[in-house]
Each structure stands twice: as structure tokens, then as C-alpha cells.
């Protein structure tokens, strides 16, 4: 009994640790290693449509054929670099606009009474629970040529011909801002709500005008919220597929769309894998490093 008890005490925790560790290892981490392997293979006409990089020849030698051509192709064909840069640019500017709109919203909510706050927060969170795809579709109903926005502007006499918003860059920006605004507001609210108001009073007692107190006190103290909110908008925006496909035009080639087409349209799996690997290194590497240090800072 005591022997078994000892063993359980020492190793019992593995019954808890092992299932999630093994599951995520097999179905989340190994796929990336696998994609890396396929990115080094050649396109082939059989199923699955790529060659094996490791093969055993008839005389028993193991043959390793690495094909760096997929990666070279990515740098040779400008569409990949351009769509990646375009995604960065779109994500960056939509994050800025979300911040400009979300900051005053969070600030206003933080200044209302506690009971109003909880209602307003629920109102902000609610759309997040409803389908993302359907919200993008709903936006189309407002901005399409004969949609609500154009009808309203025509009726008011502000414009004389319907504005073409659908299938333009504006529509992509509107879509991203519309979809991700709640992600910006919530972390901003969380930091602004905790803000110690006596600091602002002290600033005003010492003669700071409100705008100066805002710049010197509120803004620096809300930086964690600004960063968290910006990451929550920027990261999903950069890999966005649904919004540029449904709302954007042929010019709005974001990397997510290119990947999708490469995979389903051209069936070129090695190149798609190579794009995924490069994307991963370019995007997720820096984020992981950033997260690593920011959690360290939090723990310290």
C-alpha cells in the first residue's frame, strides 16, 4: 500500500498533466512540424499532392531531397511579399482607428456609475458572442449600393449618387473596425476603471489643465490597456480572411486570402505550407517574444 501510495504521490500529477499536454502536442504542435516538412517537398500529381522528402531507394539507401524552391518562389513572386505588407498596413491602420474610437468609448464607460457600467459592458460584449461571419454579412446590408447608408444619405440629399463602398478598401477597414472594436474597448476599460482618480486631482491642484493631466497621468497609466487592446485587434486583423473576401475587392489581397486561394484554388500545398511557415516566423515569433517579456514584467 505504502509503495503504491508513494508512487501515486510522486506520479499522480501526470494523470492531470498528460491528457492536455499530449493532445495539444499531437494536434497543435506536430502539425507545424509537419507543415515545415511539406514546405520542403515538391508538388506532385497524386494524393496527397506533394512528394515525400524522405524516400528509401531500391538499394536500401535513404534519400533525403529537400526542395528550397518553395521558399525561393515566395521571394521571387512579389504577390506574397506585397500581400504580407498589405496585411500589415491594413491591420496597423485599422488598429489605430479602433484605438481612436475605442479609447473615448472606454473612458466614457469608466466614468459612468457602476450599474450603468455593467449594462454598457454587456452591450459591448454581446455582439462578440454572436457569429462573426454573420456580423460581417450584416455590415454588407448597411454599406451595399442600395443599403441603409446610401439610402439615408440620398434621402438627406447629402449625396446624389450612391457611394460605392462595397468591394473597396474602405469596406475592409469598416469591417475590421466593426468586428474588433469590442476587443479594443474591454482591456482599455479595465485599465481606465482602475485608475486612481486622486492622481488627477493632484495634477489639477498643482495647476495642470485637464488635457495636460490626461497626457501626463491618464495616458501613461492606461498604456497596458492600450497595448493589450491593440494586440487583440492587430493579431486577428493581420490574418483576416472573411472580411477581405466578403467586403473587399480584387485589390484587397490580404495574406489570409492568398493562402486560401493557394490552397483551395491552385492546390499547391508545398507553396501554401511555405507561406504559412514564413508567416509564422514573421508574425508569431515577435509576438511570442513580446508576450514572454510582458508576462515576466507582470510577474515581477
Amino acid at each position: 500500500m505504502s509503495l503504491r501510495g508513494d508512487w501515486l504521490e510522486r506520479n499522480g500529477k501526470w494523470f492531470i498533466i498528460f491528457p492536455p499536454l499530449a493532445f495539444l502536442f499531437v494536434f497543435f504542435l506536430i502539425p507545424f512540424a509537419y507543415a515545415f516538412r511539406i514546405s520542403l517537398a515538391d508538388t506532385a500529381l497524386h494524393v496527397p499532392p506533394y512528394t515525400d522528402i524522405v524516400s528509401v531507394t531500391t538499394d536500401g539507401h535513404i534519400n533525403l531531397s529537400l526542395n528550397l524552391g518553395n521558399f525561393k518562389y515566395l521571394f521571387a513572386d512579389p504577390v506574397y511579399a506585397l500581400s504580407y505588407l498589405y496585411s500589415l498596413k491594413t491591420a496597423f491602420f485599422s488598429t489605430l482607428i479602433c484605438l481612436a474610437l475605442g479609447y473615448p468609448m472606454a473612458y466614457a464607460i469608466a466614468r459612468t456609475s457602476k450599474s450603468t457600467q455593467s449594462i454598457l459592458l454587456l452591450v459591448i460584449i454581446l455582439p462578440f458572442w454572436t457569429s462573426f461571419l454573420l456580423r460581417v454579412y450584416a455590415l454588407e446590408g448597411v454599406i451595399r449600393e442600395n443599403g441603409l447608408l446610401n439610402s439615408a444619405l440620398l434621402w438627406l440629399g447629402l449625396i446624389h449618387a450612391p457611394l460605392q463602398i462595397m468591394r473597396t478598401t474602405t469596406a475592409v477597414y469598416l469591417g475590421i473596425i466593426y468586428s474588433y472594436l469590442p476587443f479594443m474597448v474591454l482591456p482599455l476599460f479595465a485599465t481606465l476603471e482602475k485608475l486612481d482618480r486622486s492622481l488627477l486631482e493632484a495634477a489639477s491642484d498643482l495647476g495642470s489643465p485637464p488635457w495636460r493631466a490626461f497626457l501626463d497621468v491618464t495616458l501613461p497609466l492606461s498604456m497596458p490597456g492600450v497595448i493589450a487592446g491593440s494586440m487583440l485587434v492587430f493579431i486577428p486583423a493581420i490574418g483576416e480572411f472573411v472580411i477581405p473576401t466578403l467586403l473587399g475587392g480584387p485589390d484587397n489581397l490580404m495574406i489570409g486570402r492568398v493562402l486560401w486561394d493557394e490552397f483551395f484554388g491552385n492546390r499547391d500545398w508545398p507553396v501554401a505550407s511555405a507561406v504559412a511557415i514564413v508567416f509564422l516566423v514573421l508574425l508569431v515569433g515577435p509576438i511570442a517574444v513580446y508576450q514572454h517579456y510582458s508576462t515576466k514584467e507582470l510577474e515581477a
Partner: protein
Amino acid sequence: MQERVPYSLLSILGLGLALIYVPIFVLIAYSFNASSLVSVWGGFTTGWYTQLLHNDQVLDAAWLSLKIGVVVSTCAVVLGTLAAISLVRFRKFRGRLLLTGMVNAPLVMPEIITGITQLLLFISMLHVFGWPHRGFTTIVIAHIAFCTAYVTITVRSRLMMADRSLEEAAMDLGSGPVRAFVDTTLPGIAPALASSWLLSFTLSLDDLVISSFVSGPGASTLPMVIFSKVKLGVTPDVNALASLIIGAVGVCVVLAGYLMRRGERLRLQGIHASDV
């Protein structure tokens, strides 16, 4: 905090809320439009809703998505809770850094990359082991992987706040560690388990990109059907479907929030009562 909020701030708040809600209300209004032309108001009808009830493609997809959602969120809550317990309670173990990385990574990983890589793995697994066939199984596995991450984050933060003294008392009184945990800490983190189940369910129900990659012929989830319909053009029955989904989710979330808040209040009252 109570003081007058400047009108400029309130108007931006109003603008933001309008941006979020106007499209949804417009969509719901259109779903009752008798005219199939979006620009014309042809009178009130519930015809699109009845038409939806006879659309087998949509009904099958909805049923598939619900089944996937229930299986996924249940498994993800179990795995995510185990992961959260591992990370909070066992300070040092081999693979801790790996587990931390794997529960954080899906939150920052673009869906499209997760989808592609998982599809590649499934295809070669099928090639080598003859399992899993693309469809229900692969979608479930792929969804569990990213939902587990969300569950872990939610449960972990709750578990870190949990008071361990009750659990230690139970162990002093002779309970085994598992029994002590189930009797004392588990009821305390139950609200977090419930909300992370709901979160996983909606994330799974809503996922388009990963499902599209890992699914096989014949297994189309609801978002996949909606996406293909929407891409083809405006279809009034999608308006009806969307209104139904948004309505159902809205009611569920408000109700769940209310119940959770009430449960929490009752629990706190219970604790205070036992103090006296």
C-alpha cells in the same frame, strides 16, 4: 467616479455603439421583408423563416454544428481544466514551458495557419493509420485544440484566485487530494467552467476558417453553408437564419449572465451566513 461625462465622450460612445448595433438591427428588419430585392420594402412576412424550416441543407448543417459544438466544448472544458490545474498547482514539471506555450499560442495564431497545418497532419494520419476520416471527427479535434486554450486561460485565472485553505482543511480532515479538490475548490471555479463551456460552444459554432480546411466532402457546418450562400449573393433566407442565430445567442448570453450573477450572489450570501 460619478460626475458628469462630457457630451463629446458620450457622443463617441453612442457612435461606437451605433456602429456595432445598426447593422444587426438592419439585418433583422430585412429578414421580415416580403420582397426578395434588398432595396425594396415589400411588406411584412415571416415567409423566409418558414422557407428555412424546409431547407434541408441548412438544417443538416445546423444540426452538425450543434453536435460538434457540444462535443467540442465538453472535451475542451475537461482538457482545459486539467491544463489549468497543472499550470497553477504544479509549479515545476517537465513540459511546463511547452504546455504554457501551447495554451497561449492558439490565441495569437491566425486561424488560417492553424487550419492548414492541421489539415496536413490529418491527411497524412489518414494515409498512415487509416484514421481520422475528414469530417465530423477532424473538425471536432481541430476545434478542441483551440477551445482548450481559451478554457485554460479562463479557468487558470479563476483558480489562481481560489482560496486553498478550505482544501487544505479537507485534506487535514483526511480527504485525499482529489476528493478535497472536488469538494472544496471545484464548486468555487464552477462559474468559470460554465462560462468557458459557453465560450467554447460559441467559438466552435462560429468557426469558418479552420472547419473549411479540416472538413471533408459531405460535412458542411453552418458557417460553411452560410459563407457559400453569402458569397453567391444576397439571399433573404440567410437574413432569417442570421436573425434566429443572433436572437438565440443574445437570449442565452443575457440569461447565462443573469443566472451566473445570481448564483455568485447566493454563494457569497452563503459564505457570509456561515461566517455568522
